[in-house]
């Protein structure tokens, strides 16, 4: 993405928002909407975070895995005796030994009709189905000793036919799991009434096929787990870098046969997750099983090479799309045929059918058409498994929708922004039911489009683009409108039988000193969950923000809940906390009214004290409320019981998902001689409802955009025909670095959801959802003078030069 040209004609981008209420500022109420810096960031800045790998326990053992060198092979012989005798080695286990302690799983969901997958073991037995699948575990006193011993594992393999290509998989030439009958994990066909007629009557039908490479999350911290089994109480404490501690508690309990109440999952600081750390990984399950087997704590940290081989991949799709429209530019229908490959197993417990299903649900989503047909095939291959990674299906659905929309606009000679204006669902058309069945509460496509065009000076950029083309400088402008699934109800997983909670809970406690502690089931992964919970709690109770402490990520202490995924933490956990905080405030007022012998309606809580509502005069500091409530209840009326701890829960149920919307734009310069594309600038206008902390929201959008740009420009897990990963290191797999990345301008429209009092919708995935589509359209716009298009991501210089016919 590096290239020669600068930004000579672009004015400097406005700097990212700076907080208007720095940490030292004491603001009494109303933190919601303010850019308060995260209190929890300070220890991370000082190197005093506490990530799972930082943890050392007495008698800690380390497990390493012997992994299949083949994509598909039968294990003829696996002899661990010499490995087990190496210095420092404590034990060596094959799949059968682990299976005695850990039952296999099958990742299917009832609402994905017909989805199938074979049982998967923590450590493979008899057969490995992808390169990197663990087939033996070596436990040693140190990681280095374990790795030394791996060289002494004696294995003999019988290579089996390998399926790596999606079309090859779909043809069932070679069936990976013969007991399933074919290579199809899941398929879906969908068509609206009148679809054929609509396409037959259309003035124009455009068609194109798009390809998306596999990529992966590349969390900077590898997957990390320390499992500590205590035989004395048949209990298991697991320290794990995870997004969903309660889900993992349930899974460890059921598969290791330990009562759920005896399993505690603790999530310390997490070094990035993005969806990678919300799944069940066989090697992590094996680590927990080994802790039980050896009755001592065991640590497993995936190193970078293991991460590339075994962290879920995502996004391998080939999609044919057709769009039907009339000469006046009215879109009347979309037709979709998506083929996606997921590796040899559907990933537990969320399944690997969701991404394709989302593509079916979301394609064409921003537009007011009525006719839709979709076909989806999700197939098994002998490559690493794929599953839900940030924005799940959205980057595909947005990119194919927006690319075909641009192609139609081009065919009709209509400006792409104007073409969108004619087709985006009107802002006054809600509630609205989309042809795929999704229901939208309230979206703001037109407000977002208007704001974006103004923000980027669309007309000015078009004029500049035209001027520069005369000088043989090829710039392109790309737009991508989007809708996004956030705040999911139980319709996402619960209805399918998965024990994944769509509700979250918050407990708020007034401490004797007047401090407030809140415990919330949503987890902190760096996105600032704990910071916004401080803001919400301080606002709800009426205390200054420095009085609030937040605890998350511990099934032993927090209420039960779903955790962090599908852009749900602020909208669901935040609402639970708001309600808990308000209830605590009411209870504080009850107590204060009893102490002061006044009507509670004449009192309020603000700035750390109970005050006279009319005059604002401080009547009782909260420290005094705490002192009386906990130490001198004898001074209260006989029948009065202080309740200074309150718990509330929240589940969105009115809509299956609380949809958000937004639009992105990309401005690029393409060098036709080298094929390099320089990303000059990127814009995102997003509507996530109530913005709790603009600074955190904007930076999260930017990070999401950059992950989307990575997938569009650089990132791809390349496999050979034999199923060997060819670029499984950070030297070979490219991710965006600061020099590759443009300045990103972020702005908001705010349409709070009416389903909750807080009104917050999700935002964490929006950037990733829309960026690949915007940049694809920008590159194809830059290619217009050459009459060429590119349709396969990532858009490497090689692919661009091939499109230009230069190589």
């Amino acid at each position, binding site marked *: 993405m590096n290239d020669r040209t600068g930004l000579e004609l672009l004015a400097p981008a406005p700097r990212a928002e700076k907080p208007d209420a720095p940490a030292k500022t004491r603001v009494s109420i109303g933190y919601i909407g303010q850019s308060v810096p995260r209190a929890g960031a300070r220890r991370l800045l000082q190197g005093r975070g506490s990530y799972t790998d930082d943890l050392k326990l007495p008698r800690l053992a380390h497990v390493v895995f012997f992994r299949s060198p083949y994509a598909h092979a039968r294990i003829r012989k696996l002899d661990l005796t010499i490995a087990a005798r190496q210095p420092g080695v404590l034990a060596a286990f094959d799949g059968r030994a682990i299976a005695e302690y850990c039952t296999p799983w099958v990742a299917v969901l009832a609402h994905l009709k017909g989805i199938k997958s074979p049982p998967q073991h923590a450590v493979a037995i008899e057969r490995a189905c992808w390169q990197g699948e663990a087939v033996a575990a070596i436990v040693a006193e140190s990681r280095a000793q374990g790795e030394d011993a791996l060289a002494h594992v004696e294995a003999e393999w019988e290579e089996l036919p390998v399926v790596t290509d999606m079309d090859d998989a779909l043809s069932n030439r070679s069936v990976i799991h013969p007991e399933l009958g074919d290579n199809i994990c899941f398929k879906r066909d969908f068509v609206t009434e009148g679809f054929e007629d609509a396409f037959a009557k259309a003035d124009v039908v455009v068609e194109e096929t798009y390809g998306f490479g596999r990529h992966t999350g590349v969390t900077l911290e590898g997957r990390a787990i320390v499992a500590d089994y205590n035989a004395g109480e048949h209990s298991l404490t697991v320290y794990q870098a995870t997004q969903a501690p309660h889900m993992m508690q349930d899974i460890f309990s059921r598969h290791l046969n330990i009562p759920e109440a005896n399993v505690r999952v603790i999530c310390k600081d997490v070094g990035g997750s993005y969806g990678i750390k919300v799944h069940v990984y066989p090697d992590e399950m094996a680590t927990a099983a080994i802790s039980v087997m050896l009755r001592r704590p065991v640590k497993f940290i995936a190193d970078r090479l293991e991460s590339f081989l075994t962290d879920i991949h995502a996004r391998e799709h080939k999609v044919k799309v057709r769009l039907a429209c009339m000469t006046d530019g009215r879109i009347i229908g979309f037709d979709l045929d998506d083929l996606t490959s997921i590796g040899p197993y559907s990933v537990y417990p969320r399944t690997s059918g969701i991404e394709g299903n989302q593509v079916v649900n979301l394609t064409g989503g921003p537009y007011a058409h009525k006719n839709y047909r979709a076909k989806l095939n999700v197939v098994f291959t002998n490559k690493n498994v794929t599953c839900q990674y940030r924005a799940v299906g959205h980057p595909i659905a947005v990119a194919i929708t927006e690319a075909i929309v641009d192609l139609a606009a081009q065919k009709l000679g209509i400006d792409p922004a104007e073409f969108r204006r004619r087709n985006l669902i009107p802002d006054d058309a809600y509630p609205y039911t989309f042809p795929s069945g999704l229901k939208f509460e309230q979206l703001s496509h037109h407000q977002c489009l208007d704001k974006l065009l103004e923000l980027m000076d669309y007309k000015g950029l078009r004029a500049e683009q035209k001027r520069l083309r005369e000088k043989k400088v090829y710039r392109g402008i790309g737009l991508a409108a989007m809708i996004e699934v956030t705040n999911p109800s139980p319709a996402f997983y619960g209805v399918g039988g998965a024990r994944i909670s769509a509700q979250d809970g918050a407990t708020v406690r007034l401490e004797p000193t007047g401090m407030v502690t809140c415990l919330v089931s949503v987890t902190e992964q760096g996105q600032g969950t704990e910071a916004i919970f401080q803001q919400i709690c301080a606002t709800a109770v009426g205390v200054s923000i420095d009085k609030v402490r937040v605890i998350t990520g511990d099934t032993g202490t927090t209420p039960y809940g779903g955790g962090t995924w599908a852009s749900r933490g602020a909208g669901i956990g935040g609402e639970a906390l708001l309600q808990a905080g308000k209830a605590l405030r009411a209870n504080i007022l009850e107590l204060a009214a009893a102490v002061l012998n006044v009507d509670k309606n004449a009192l309020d809580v603000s700035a750390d004290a109970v005050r006279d509502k009319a005059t604002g005069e401080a009547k009782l500091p909260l420290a005094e409320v705490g002192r009386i409530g906990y130490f001198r209840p004898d001074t209260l009326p006989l029948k009065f019981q202080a309740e200074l701890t309150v718990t509330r829960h929240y589940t969105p149920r009115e809509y299956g998902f609380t949809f958000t919307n937004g639009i992105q734009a990309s401005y690029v310069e393409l060098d036709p001689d080298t094929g390099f594309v320089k990303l000059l600038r990127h814009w995102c206008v997003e509507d996530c409802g109530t913005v709790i902390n603009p600074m955190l929201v904007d*930076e999260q959008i930017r990070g999401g955009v950059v992950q989307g740009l990575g997938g569009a420009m650089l990132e791809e897990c390349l496999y050979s025909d034999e199923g060997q990963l060819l670029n499984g290191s950070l030297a070979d797999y490219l991710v965006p670095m600061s020099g590759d990345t443009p300045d990103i301008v972020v702005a908001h429209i705010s349409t709070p959801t009416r389903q909750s009092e807080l009104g917050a919708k999700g935002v964490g995935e929006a950037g990733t959802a829309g960026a690949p589509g915007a940049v694809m359209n920008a590159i194809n716009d830059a290619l217009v003078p050459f009459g060429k298009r590119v349709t396969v991501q990532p858009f490497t210089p090689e692919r661009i030069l091939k499109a230009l016919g230069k190589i």
Partner: protein
Amino acid sequence: MDEFFDATITVNGKPVMRRVEPRQHLIDFLREELGLTGSHCGCEHGACGACTVRVDGEIRRGCLMLAVQAHGRSVDTVEGLTDNGELSALQQAFHERNALQCGFCTPGMLLTAQELVATCPDATREEIREFMSGNLCRCTGYQAIVDAIEEVIATQRKGASG
């Protein structure tokens, strides 16, 4: 691996003596032997910069250097440079602008940024992006990091001219 080497390394200003395996990397030595867990292992092949520490005043990748190579030398980590206040301007700017999310890259980012601030007091925004391109951040999108460093450089320049 029965050969060991007695190494004396000045870590954050204090000499430490340890018997180390010749194959042990500096980052593992700091994390495992000394409990200095502020520096992180992101890739162990020199690509991500999460293990960046300072050796004899210059930034180095802790995963590309052996502990024995630091024998007789001086190593500074984020813990020491926090305590002596050297990183405080950058830390404050990073905090105020939320130039971090998960924090895993942050200690390495800060050490690299501090070298830039100290050696290139006139760095432009483009030069900041270029200099920081050896440190991977997967969360932020880099813009707040670049903004924070730019601000520290501007403040430093103002101080020098005023």
